[in-house]
Each structure stands twice: as C-alpha cells, then as structure tokens.
C-alpha cells in the first residue's frame, strides 16, 4: 500500500503545473517539428507551456469530435485539408484569418476562414536506394504497373491513410476526366493490387518492410522519405512526371479553445516566414507561403519547387465521394488483382 501511496504523491507532484499557462496542440507532425515549435514559441512567450500530443490526423478529428462538450485542445496543427473541411462542417473549428493568409495560394484557404494551409506535402514514388539505382526507378505512376514490379510494391493500408486516399483519389479522378466513369480508375487500382506485395498496417511497418526489402517500391509522401534519409536510411524518391497530388497541410483553432489569444499567436508564429524557413531547413516541410525567399530554402525544397508538377485535384469531389470509392476498393479490388498480396 505504501508503494502505491508514494506513486500517487509523486504523480500529483508531477501533475502540478509550474505556473505557466498551458497551450495544448493536437498534431500529426511528429516529435521533431513539434519540439521545434514548442521551443521557439516558448522562447517568445516565457509564461506559456506548450503541450503537444502527437497522433494521426484522423485521430485528431475523432478526438476533437468526442471532446466537443469539453474541449481539451486549443490548436489543431497539421493534416490534409479535407479533414479540416469535415471538422469545419461539423462546427468543430473557430474562424480565424491569420495575417499571413494572403501569402498562400487561394486553393489553400479553407472555406469560411476555418483553416489555412501552412505546408504543401507532395506524394512521391519512393524506393530502397540500396536495392535500386535512380535510373531503374519508374518516374511516373503508370510505370509502376510494368510487369517487372510485380510483387515488388508495398502499399500503406489506404483505408487508414490520408496520403494513400489522396493518391487513389487522383487515380479515380484521372479516369473520370478521361472517360467520365470511375471504372477506368478502378481498373488501374486493380492492376496496382496485382503488383502489391503487401499492405502495411502503419507507416512504421511500411518503413520496416521497405528497409528489409520485402518490396523495393512504395507510394508515399515526401517529408517522411527525406527525414529517413537524414537518419541514414537508404530511402530516396522521384517526383512523378505527369503530376502528383499536393496535400495542403493546414492549421486551425479548435472551437471552445480555453486559450484563444495564445492559440491565435501560435497560428501566427507557425505561418511566419521565419518559422517556415526553419521548418523547411530542419524538418523537410515545403512552405505553403509563396513569399518565402527562394534563396533561403534548402536545396531539396528548391529542387522540388522547380521540378514538381502539381496534379489538378478536385478536393471537394474527393471529400464527397472518397469514402464511396474506398469502400468499393476495399470490397471489390483489394486482394483481387490476380497475383500479389492476398493470393
């Protein structure tokens, strides 16, 4: 019993705040970027204690929903804009137009000023660079369907991934534009399923499988690949030549936030040119702001800005129809592409 009492006392002591005002951030951005944001923001506001919780962006939406009656967070930092769109339509966000709003493209504005994009996250074709040389790697979406990649492709479970939903959505939309029907896109996805060695349950498993060469190619997002490269892992990427969907990675203030003034200050800081450059240099996020001086961007960002072809995406259509497409895929395509994953 005494042991339990000691633990309780210790916990109570630790739970006591040090007098600083807490600002709670829900974010999928990971320890590196969030620690950077915490340190820099606290340096400017010594009386604030930035507390971040790192979770998937779908999880942020679920939590904000379930906490509606008693909001625990102040800022939602990061995630594809279609999730913010859902949150806005369920009245979970507070409208706030930051001073930097005019510096981002209008497509990155959320309707009703509920959210604004701070980073642009392109999808890429990624590969294990110990197993493949750059000239072997397919540099466009259609080329991954070539027979030589049969059983060589790893795919993150698309049901649970905003990135994969966006890529699959792009495929369907291309089919729709070409033929006016979803069948063409589904046929493409069926062939991709035939090429797929395995569906990975989470990014960590995807990463392990790619590292261990259970497959050598995957479709994924840019910042993760660059972060892994820095750690010394043999990952590299190519930008698809015909165009790639660029996910607008947004920020918003949660309705019922307990510290709205601080939340606004945080949003201002995240969108500032200074922090945009810092994050581009240290955490591989492509700034959404167009007025960030090109010279101040790191080499990779200059290269991506120059070479990247942004796919024209109908985000509204994806937001409305995406669930139905994924449901069809899950029931009729997954594991039925002939060979590959679930033989």
């Amino acid at each position, binding site marked *: 019993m005494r042991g*339990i009492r000691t*633990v*309780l006392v*210790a*916990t109570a002591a*630790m*739970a006591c705040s040090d007098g600083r005002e*807490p600002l*709670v951030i829900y974010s*999928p951005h*990971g*320890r*590196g970027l969030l620690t950077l944001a915490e340190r820099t923001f606290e340096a400017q506001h010594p009386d604030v204690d930035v*507390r971040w*919780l*790192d*979770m*998937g962006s*779908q*999880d942020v939406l*679920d*939590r904000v929903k*379930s*906490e*509606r*009656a*008693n909001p*625990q967070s102040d800022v939602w930092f990061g995630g594809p804009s279609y999730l913010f769109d*859902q949150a806005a339509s369920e009245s979970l966000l507070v409208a706030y137009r930051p001073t930097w709003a005019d510096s981002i493209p209008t497509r990155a504005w959320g309707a009703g000023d509920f959210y604004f994009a701070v980073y642009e996250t392109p999808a890429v074709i990624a590969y294990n660079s110990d197993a493949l040389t750059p000239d072997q790697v397919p540099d466009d979406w259609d080329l991954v369907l070539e027979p030589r990649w049969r059983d060589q492709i790893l795919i993150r479970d698309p*049901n*649970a991934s905003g990135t994969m939903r966006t890529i699959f959505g792009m495929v369907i939309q291309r089919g729709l534009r070409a033929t006016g029907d979803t069948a063409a896109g589904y046929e493409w996805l069926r062939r991709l399923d035939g090429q797929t060695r395995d*569906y990975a*349950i*989470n*990014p*960590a*498993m995807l*990463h*392990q*499988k790619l*590292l*261990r*060469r*259970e497959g050598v190619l995957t479709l994924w997002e840019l910042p*993760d690949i660059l*972060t*892994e490269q820095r*750690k*010394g*892992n043999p990952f590299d990427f190519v930008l698809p030549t015909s165009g790639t969907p660029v996910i607008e990675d947004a920020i918003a203030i949660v309705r019922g936030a307990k510290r709205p003034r601080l939340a606004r200050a945080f949003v201002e800081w995240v969108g500032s040119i200074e922090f945009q450059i810092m994050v581009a240099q240290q955490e591989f996020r492509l700034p959404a702001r167009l007025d960030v001086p090109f010279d101040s961007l790191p080499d990779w960002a200059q290269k991506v800005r120059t070479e990247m072809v942004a796919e024209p995406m109908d985000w509204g259509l994806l937001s409305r129809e995406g*669930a139905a497409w*994924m*449901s069809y895929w*899950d*029931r009729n395509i*997954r*594991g039925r592409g002939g060979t590959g*994953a*679930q033989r």
Partner: protein
Amino acid sequence: MNRGRGTGWLLALILAWLVVYPIALVVIDSVKDDSGWTTQYLTAFLSDSHEWGALWNSVWLSVASVALAGTIGIPLAFVFERLEFPGRRILGALVALPAVLPPLVGVIAFLFLYGETGFVGRVVGAVMGTSQAPWRLRGWGAILLVHAYSMYVYFYLFTRAGLAKVDSSMIEAAHSLGHSARSTLFKVTLPLLRPQIGAAALLTFMTALGSFSAPYIFGGGFRVMTTQIVTSKLNGDIHASVVETAALAAVAFVGLVLFRRYQGTRSVAAVGKGTPPTARTLVQPLARWSATALGWTFAVVLLLPHATLLLVSLIPVGTWTTELFPTEYTLGNYLALAAEPERLRPLVNSVWMAAIGTLGALALALWAGRLVVQKRVTLRKHIETLTSLPWAVPGTVLAIALATTFSVRAPWVGRWVLVGTLAILPLAYMIRNVPIVAGSVLAGFRQLDPALDEAAASLGASRWRTVLRVTVPLLRPALLAGGALAFATALGDFVTSVVLYTFDTRPISIEILSALRDFDIGIAAAYGVVLMLISAAAMVVGTRR
C-alpha cells in the same frame, strides 16, 4: 438477509451504470439518426453478405481460439503445478509472459521473427537455399497462431490457481477406490476445475471476439467484425460501424449466456479444505531430464518474441535490415529514455493508473463474489453476467462509449464530465478488467468452503473481520492471479487509452505509438522492454504460491 438483498441491488446498479449504460447509449444510435428512429442501417447490414461472412468468421475463429488455447494452457498448468524439476519456479513464471507482450511493438517483434524476412524465416530460408522464408504470416492461420500464443495464458493461470486448491485427499480417495491416474484426472480433477476452465474459456472467447490487432495485421483479406467496424469508421460510415458494433455485442452476449449455461453456478464446495498435492519430484533421471528439456524448450519458443524485442531495443536505427544477426549494439535507446524527464513520465502514469484500476476491479470482484457465491442474493445471476459484460464489446467501443457518456454534465441521469480528467483512464482500466478479476475471483469463491465463513461468524468475528482474516487469505491465489493479469493488461492497454488519454495521463502505449510514428523502432522497443519487465514482475507475484 434483507441487508444482502439491498447491497445486491446496489452492486447490480453500479455495474449497470458503469457497463451497460454507456454501451446502451451507443447501441441506441444503431437504430437512430438525426431524423429519429430508423431501421434502414440495420436492414442494410442484414442484407449484406460481406457482413454475414465477417460475423461468421468472428464466431468460428473465437471458438477455435478457445480450443487451441485450452489445448496448450491446461496441460502446461498441470506440468508446472504437479511436477518438480529444475527451473520449475522461474519457468512457471516465464511461460505466463505472452500475456505481457507489449502492444504495437509486439507486432514488430513478430515481424522481425516470423515475417517473411524475419529471423526464423531467414534461418529456414538459408537451410532450404532460398533467400526468404517459404511462407507468409497471413490469413486465418496466422490469426489463430497469434491468438493461441497470447491467450493460452488465461487457461494456464486459472488452471494453476485452481489446482493449487484441489484437495489431495480426494485424489487419494479416488486412487484407493481403484481409479487409474487417467480416470482420476477426468472424473475428479478436471470436474473440480470446471469453474476455472469455464472462466478461462469465457475470457478467451471474448478476447478473441474483440481482438482487433491480430486480424488487422495478419488477416490480409480475411474479414472479421472488428476490422469491419474500423473500416466503416475510417470511411466515415458511422451508422454502419455502430450497427456492426451492436451485432458484435449481440454475438458476445449470446456467447456469454451459452457459457453460463454450460458452466453452471454450482459451487464445488468440497475443494479447498485439505492441502493440495505437493508437486511430484521426478526421480527417474530420464523423466526428470525430459520434463526439464520440454519445459525449457517451450519457454524458449514462447519467449522468442520477447527476446527479439530486447534485441531490437539494443540496435542502432536502421542497421539490422538484410543481415541474419544485427551487426552493432547500443544502449542509446535506453539512455534516451532515462535522459528526458518527459519520456519517463508516461511510465509513472501507466503504473499508477493501472494500479488504481486493478485495485478497483479487485474490490468490485470481491464484493460480487461475496454476494453471488456466499450470500447467493436474488440478483446473483445478473451480477455475474454484468461482471463479464465489458468483454462483450471491443475495447475501442467501450472507450468511445465512456467518452460519450462522461463528456456531458447531467448528474440526474448519472453523467458527469470525466473526459479530460485524471479519473477517466483508471476508471476505464477498472471496467475493462472487471471480467478478468471477477472470472478468477468468483471461481476462487466457488472453491471456498462456506463452513469456514460460518465458523468465523460463530466465533464472533465481525463481517469485515471475516472478509479480511478468512476470505481474503483463502482467496489469495485467485486474487493474485486475477490482479496480476489485470494489472499487466491495464499497463499495456492501447485501444482504450488512445481514445481517452490527455497530456497529463498519457500512458506508455501512447509513447510507443508516438515513437513508431517517428519510425523510432529502437525507442519503441526500449519502452516495450521496460513495460515487459514491470508486467513480468507483477506476473511473478501473481503466480507465486
């Protein structure tokens, strides 16, 4: 008598409030939407062959898991309880460890071990002259393997707790009446163990039914109800996921009722009077050596995933990829844990929350046992069903139900705002663990001789004194076994925590998730190893006689 009836109602009410009420609030949603009552979602479910297939898969897979886990767990308990051989004590605790393979990273350990590019796979591949394993860890076979591996522990622990209470004089009597060892086993010992085996079977069935990770990770295209729920939810089809949840809960409820029927509620009062048979020391060298070898082999196989996890926690990022063995080792991951106070904090959180949750569950189970078995109150059947009910819904669903119920302030209907406070996670752990603890404790009560209780009363002991000085000491094996299992489960809980944690209560599993999101497998594994050590310590206490 009146008093017993009153407290019976009170306990039933508390359990109903904590368990039935939140789930009912969610289930009502399956026949309701913004426009009012409707059966359209239910009809959609019933007319969909995919859904029926998934439901059927859930059922048969759970039954098969029970059979398989029992086949492993029960004989193992006999070996460790009845035979004396070198290493018995330590191995006896070690084989209970699969219960404490930590969440999320445990799967990574399986991948490193049995995956197609895993250690075992590469060894087999090398022997057969191929570069990779000739198998894939996928489909219903893989799910069953993981279930059997993690769930035989219920049978093992409960059977051991029961065997420790079996009266040796009854076995001797059977022998002296001319029964063979075999017939004594089937006619005397196993029937005496019926409460424990029944409780373990129920736990296994419910756990398998609600199991999500194994089917999700290893299932491939194989669908069960829990994965259907998540897929629907991810697709934004909330109504379908609610109906699927209700369907799963209904199956679980039917399963619960059937098990109750089979198990019966007779107490096996003849047990627990005398002393249990002492473990038979094997004197014959051959038998002694083969028992030792068998025990160790079994332990090694069972502990391979744990060893793999330990190995992963000791290697630098990205170094062990295509080699058979790692090439470098480091303590860096553990140093990172110790160096940053905010990385240490979740450990403290998990320990105190799991401790409170377990103590609460133990108190409820003791109360339930006293009312159901000793007082035999009118509501005893309902109380007992209520204690198993938290298993009837998957952890995620229970968590969402709690989040819904306790995010509104309406004291007159029993709802307070607990979401976002320190109280909600210990409460959730308590509710989730009531079935584990109650299963073990009620079975223990059934073996108690009521005469002892009466004797204490007739000697003038007060009610509390009887409980503390007679009942609790006699129930020690059951309390420890149930409590240790509950503590270990709560310590490693992921599915409930992920819905309900806050900054101040973030537990270890959330830190593991966070590390994995950063692809920091080493840190995640180091957390996992620490988690295993604490849980293992609890299990050693739990299996001590």
